[in-house]
């Protein structure tokens, strides 16, 4: 097990380093944006003195390196400064929204991941049959339709025509969990439709790729029934690529939900990002970007660890 801890430690170290590099990129990209932030806050009519005073107050007169280090120091303690539009602390502004996004992503993932893997195993077992083709066409259709289109179609049927689910997924503090699940069902379903295809097809491909292995032929020649050949002999060796594609899709569920949030007016972090970009609220933009980057890195790290843990050669060294 010592080896595995070492490998995981190494991956974690690399992840932190990448995050640091990304923080540099985010900070200085925002820095490169044209326009003067103080000017943007105070408007065209501001006097030179007022601008200078505001720059001093916001620390804009200091060199960029110093400001970066200050910002990084704050970010480590989850303090991203104050919004320049509302003056609120960035953490309080996006904290709740990030939790909302995580909730929606988890909701979608809990449905999509098992569904995709079960479907993937089924289509691998029934490959080249009508079921395989129908599943492929259906999931490909859903992945190639834009989210907003899918979202509106779902709204049309599920809320307008059949009245089963609300069209707008606005949240309030005192909702119970069943209520919450009911209200956010349509955005979650939209996300499920978008990510399932990718994971299912990867599961199918990973399994079929293994079917030419000698140990699969051996299993068949032992009289193992076809479903057992797939589930017991192929699937355990196919986890590494499947876990990777699952992690990528989970990351997408968190960072790629902007459109879905807009369609369903869901108070998530994607909307916060869009708003803050249009208002030049740069501390919020930076914080959102860093959170997205951290999410990606963390999920990829989890995928690496998962792939290591499912490899018997690493789990049971000689």
């Amino acid at each position, binding site marked *: 097990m010592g080896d595995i801890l070492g490998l995981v430690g190494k991956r974690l170290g690399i992840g932190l380093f990448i995050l640091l590099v990304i923080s540099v990129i985010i900070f200085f990209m925002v820095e490169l944006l044209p326009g003067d932030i103080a000017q943007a806050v105070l408007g065209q009519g501001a006097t030179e003195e007022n601008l200078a005073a505001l720059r001093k107050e916001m620390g804009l007169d200091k060199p960029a390196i110093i400001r970066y280090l200050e910002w990084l120091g704050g970010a480590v303690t989850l303090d991203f400064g104050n919004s320049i539009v509302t003056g609120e602390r960035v953490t309080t502004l996006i904290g709740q929204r990030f939790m909302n996004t995580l909730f929606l992503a988890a909701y979608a993932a809990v449905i999509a991941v098992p569904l995709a893997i079960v479907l993937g195993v089924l289509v691998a077992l029934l490959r080249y049959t009508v079921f395989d083709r129908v599943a492929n066409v259906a999931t490909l259709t859903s992945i190639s339709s834009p989210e907003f289109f899918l979202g509106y179609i779902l709204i049309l049927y599920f809320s307008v025509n059949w009245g089963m689910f609300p069209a707008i997924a606005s949240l309030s503090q005192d909702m119970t969990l069943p209520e919450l699940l009911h209200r956010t069902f349509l955005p979650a379903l939209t996300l499920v439709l978008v990510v399932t295809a990718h994971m299912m097809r990867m599961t199918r491909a990973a399994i079929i790729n293994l079917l030419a292995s*000698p140990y699969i032929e051996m*299993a068949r020649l032992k009289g193992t029934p076809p479903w*057992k050949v797939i589930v017991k002999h192929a699937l*355990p060796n196919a986890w590494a690529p499947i876990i990777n594609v699952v992690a990528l899709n989970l990351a997408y569920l968190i960072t790629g939900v902007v459109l879905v949030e807009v369609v369903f007016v869901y108070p998530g972090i994607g909307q916060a990002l869009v708003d803050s970009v249009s208002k030049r609220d740069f501390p919020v933009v930076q914080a959102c970007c860093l959170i997205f980057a951290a999410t990606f890195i963390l999920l990829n790290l989890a995928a690496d660890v998962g792939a290591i843990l499912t490899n018997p*050669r690493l789990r049971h060294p000689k």
Partner: protein
Amino acid sequence: MPKSKDVLLEIRDLQIQGYSDEQWVDIIKGVDLTLHRGEVLGLIGESGAGKSTIGAAAMGYARDGTRISGGSIEFDGMELTTASESDRRALRGSRIAYVAQSAAASFNPAHKLIDQHTEAPVQYRLKKRMEAQEDAIELYRRLRLPNPEEIGFRYPHQVSGGQLQRAMTAMAMSCRPDLIIFDEPTTALDVTTQIEVLAAIRDIVDQFNTAAIYITHDLAVVAQMADTIKVLLKGEEVEEAPTKEMLDNPKEDYTKSLWAVRSLKREQKVRPKDTTPLISVRNVDAAYSSGAKVLDDVSFDVYEGMTVAVVGESGSGKSTTARVITGLLPPMKGDVLFKGEPFPPDYRNRTKDQLRQCQMIYQMADTALNPKVQISEIIGRPAQFYHGLKGAALKSRVDELLDLIELEPSKYYNRYPPELSGGQKQRIGIARALAADPTFIICDEVTSALDQLVAEGILRLLNRLQKELNLAYMFITHDLATVRAIADEVVVMQHGKVVEQGPKTDMFTPPHHPYTDLLLSSVPEMDPDWLTTLLEERGVDNVGEAASSNIKPGDAKVQGTQL
């Protein structure tokens, strides 16, 4: 061995087709086969003769991309060609079992050996899981696996190749089948390991009176195992006869040619006096990054125009030595000298002229040639790189090289590797090495992936080229028959050390170093009683790996190793 005369398997006019290039082509063209209970039939032939296909068909199984297109397969009164898939599947593992060529690849890496062993008996409800495990341990014991109580609870990668092959034989026995198909079960193993697997298979087949089809391309092996031998060529039967009769008195020309393969001989050269060796490996220690030492104080010389065979089991450091000489793996200690001058340890620091001197030919011509590059370019590139040839000069050099390897230039110039046969690909590999105009070529197991007849052609070609171009070869092999045929000097390696070296004639006459002795005596001979005699000599628990671990470093003969 008492044999009841019941017919167990009867195959009549079997025809199998394979799908290639968008059409079905015949690969088995009407083969008959009769097998009685408790009888062992040897199927022998070159690769592509259809041995494995027939083996699979005996289980009512057509591999992906093949189909049984005609004839009948009757197993114990049941017609397999017309039976339903579920009926056929019910036979597999329970009444007919299969032992594959590479146990390492045929055990599922994700499960423990014993869980794979008990899968079939539990599925067929023959035994409860615990009973099946106890039975597995009993079979492991009978097959003389070390630690039978414990070995089954390991994963495949934690067990050595020879042990895996025995565990797979045990697995085939798990339901006490009537018939086992052995598909080249020892081809991937070292000679010393092969013996213990052969002995174990023969014992267990005897003990349970199981019938078997034993598929191999090695005549000497089949002579030990089979009661009857059937020779196949390109999907057709050549002849069939009881083992002894087949060995003493083969009727067909093709069979005779198979028997004659081991006759290649070449005059042994002796070292020239008062010359510096062409390549001299001096006290080399080497290791792969952060690993244990793979080579330990390796020294030997190769003289101009001579062939030095380096023999030893897999993992003994033969290929690592080649990597050190070519500069791919700089040694930790020691040097490689070329005509007395030290070669820079890393190939990146060698001059073009130094690089040119030392070329390699690889074991797998399939993977050593880029399938998307034309032959003319494969051979032409080194000629261009080392000698700056261009245009017409380059073309005539490539033609000359193709002539040298006995392939007609106009026919092969524009072709791609996948269009060639295994032997032709290996010839291209040789031409590529020659293109640099070297003085020294390392041949790394160049014939072990080839059929005997083809391999012999390659060896003859190498001999001829050596004579014409005064080449020196370092010939890495584990096949002692090849060594006997072509070597001038022999270096025996074990665990990264040179245990014995000297002229070939000395090496093949006793007294040997005990390890050399073990290697030599483990090479199967055509005599059908060879294995029995050998096992009596060594004692039944002292075969293969067990025997090699018995060689003590303090042994008098080890001390007296001559150089």
